[in-house]
């Protein structure tokens, strides 16, 4: 599988880079939680028991120690660590679903989840799946309508709606 990937495109990150980045991410989270735990107090309060910061403090202490070990294990240059984790085409393909997903969530605030989902599914089918436009339209509209019926009408679960739904009286 990995040889396939290597043949496929320019390597972007090695496992070592990613491992170090994630270990550093853990250490940042650890520092943030520790700061707030110390503000809340990590001592024993007579008649009230442990202060609210005690439990999180020791939890992230354990997390910090474990992350330091992970960092120490990731740092030396080993053959395993130098292997390619992601390639440029791989990242591009992920961006093809993720960037539109971000736009979809952003658009939901303005035009409601059903309309933006129909646009999202439809455009993805046309541009990525190379479907003919009429098929993409049928699938995306059908999906939006079925979900609308299911959530808004049958189960009465309100989801974000926009001007179009308001025009229909919802």
């Amino acid at each position, binding site marked *: 599988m990995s040889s396939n990937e290597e043949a496929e495109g320019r390597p972007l990150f090695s*496992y070592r880079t*990613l491992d170090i980045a*994630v270990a550093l991410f*853990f250490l940042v*989270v650890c520092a*943030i*939680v520790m700061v*707030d735990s110390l503000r*809340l107090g990590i001592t024993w309060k007579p008649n*009230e*028991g*442990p*202060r*609210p*910061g005690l*439990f*999180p403090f020791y*939890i*992230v202490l*354990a*997390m910090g120690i*474990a*992350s330091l*070990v*992970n960092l120490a*294990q990731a740092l030396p240059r080993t053959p395993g660590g130098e292997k390619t*984790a*992601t390639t440029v085409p*791989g*990242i591009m*393909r*992920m961006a*093809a*679903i*993720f960037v*539109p*997903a*971000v736009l*979809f*969530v952003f658009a*939901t605030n303005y035009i409601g*989840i059903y309309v933006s*989902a129909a646009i*999202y*599914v439809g455009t*993805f*089918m046309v541009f*990525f*799946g*190379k*479907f003919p436009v009429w098929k993409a339209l049928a*699938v995306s509209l059908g*999906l939006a309508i079925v*979900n609308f019926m299911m*959530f808004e009408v049958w*189960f*009465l*679960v309100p*989801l*974000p709606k926009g001007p179009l739904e308001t025009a229909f009286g919802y």
Partner: protein
Amino acid sequence: MDELNALFGGFAVALSAYHLMLMVIGITLGVVIGVLPGLGGANGVAILLPLTFSMPPTAAIILLTSIYWGALFGGAITSILFNIPGEPWSVATTFDGHPMAQNGKADEALVGAFTASFVGAIFAVVLITFLAPVVAKFALKFGPAEFFAVQFLTFASFIGMGRGSAFKTVASMCLGFALATVGLDGVTGTLRMTFGQDELLNGFKFLVAVIGLFGIGEILCSMEDGLKFNGAAAKLRMDAVIRTWKQLPRMWLTFLRSCIVGCWMGITPGGATPASFMGYGIAKRLSKRGDNFGKGELEGVVAPETAAHAAGTSALLPMLTLGIPGSPTAAVLLGGLLIWGLQPGPLLFVEQKEFVWGLIASMYLGNVVGLVMVLTCVPLFAAILRVPFSIIAPSIVFICAIGAYTVNNAMFDVWMMLAFGVLGYLFNKLRYPLPPLVLALVLGDQAESSFRQAMLVSQGHVGIFWSNWLCGGIMTLGMVMAFWPALQALRAKFSGNGAVARTA
């Protein structure tokens, strides 16, 4: 043998065309609810509760429990096909269920999951039939120290039974705990880790994290690997049922272990979610084929499903006998009982004999009807995998967004879901285990508050966790689990092979 006579009386009540029809309707609705993220068994039962007010209590509870069984069955479907757990207790089902689907064995995984659910549920119903009063009394002994001990054992088993790096397991688990502390502190009412952000008041809901980590993370991984959806090769053969059932008898020990774990967790109210994780963990450690777990092993589907359903079903036991619901859905059913004018508790067995035994008989029947229904639909479910990936991928993102939004009705959660998706992708790549993170998010609050309550009771002495045999036994077992990798490493060092001690 009074129980048997009463049970036959119950069958006479439950076996009518009207009741059977209600079961079929209830299970269909339940499967739909279980498949849809954001709609759980508890929500489903709650939404449909008002419809049952005009029915006689026996018919009403048959309909509602059937929805519950349906939801329990349905949660497995999306876990196996799309790696999106429809219900929290199906998270453990994804570990082997989804790899099986990727290997083209989706139908076997589904049949295995449904059959396992059925076995777990029936085992629990038998337990309810005969042990109801005895076992319920035992659950009353549980104090904060015992609760913490059970939770500690659950978490320690991750470290002891994990395959990868123990340090990555610890880091992942503690991240879950840290995220669980965000928001309002349940004991003192102070705000923690919110840094003045109003959106963080509610904290991180584990469903949002699960949908992001598993659902979005999986989509990112399959996009990176190329266009094709790995499960698309699933073949639909009608003999899947027989093929799978032939493999099941040799797993009898796994079934039995998961049933016992599940019933224990259901009654004590540990709940179905930790039960499924424990069932999986125990099977992974003790099974001969444990090394294959995570790569698509039928036994890895059977173990968590059996435990989850044994727990989900036996959670009704304390509800009926003591009025203490063992699960959120049981709590909603309890509300229903009160509305119908029935007082749950020991007296229910005396005053409303017909209702109680009718209910218990309907548990047997409902599960049989449910199994037949879902098994006949397996080809239908597996056919979903043939839909092209460029339709499936954005649709899953859409469904995930709905699921994340409905948790708190907040767009903030949908953004968090995307962030968790990236995290899920990275964790997957670097072999940080996800289950400990999820379980810590689920149980973090409870574990912390039972720890703090126990500390209050003992005025800060850790000795309270060894104050009686029950609690002390569980804690000691937990300690052994937590330090298992270290012990293994020590043993490797002293065995004289000169092998480098690695916590692997």
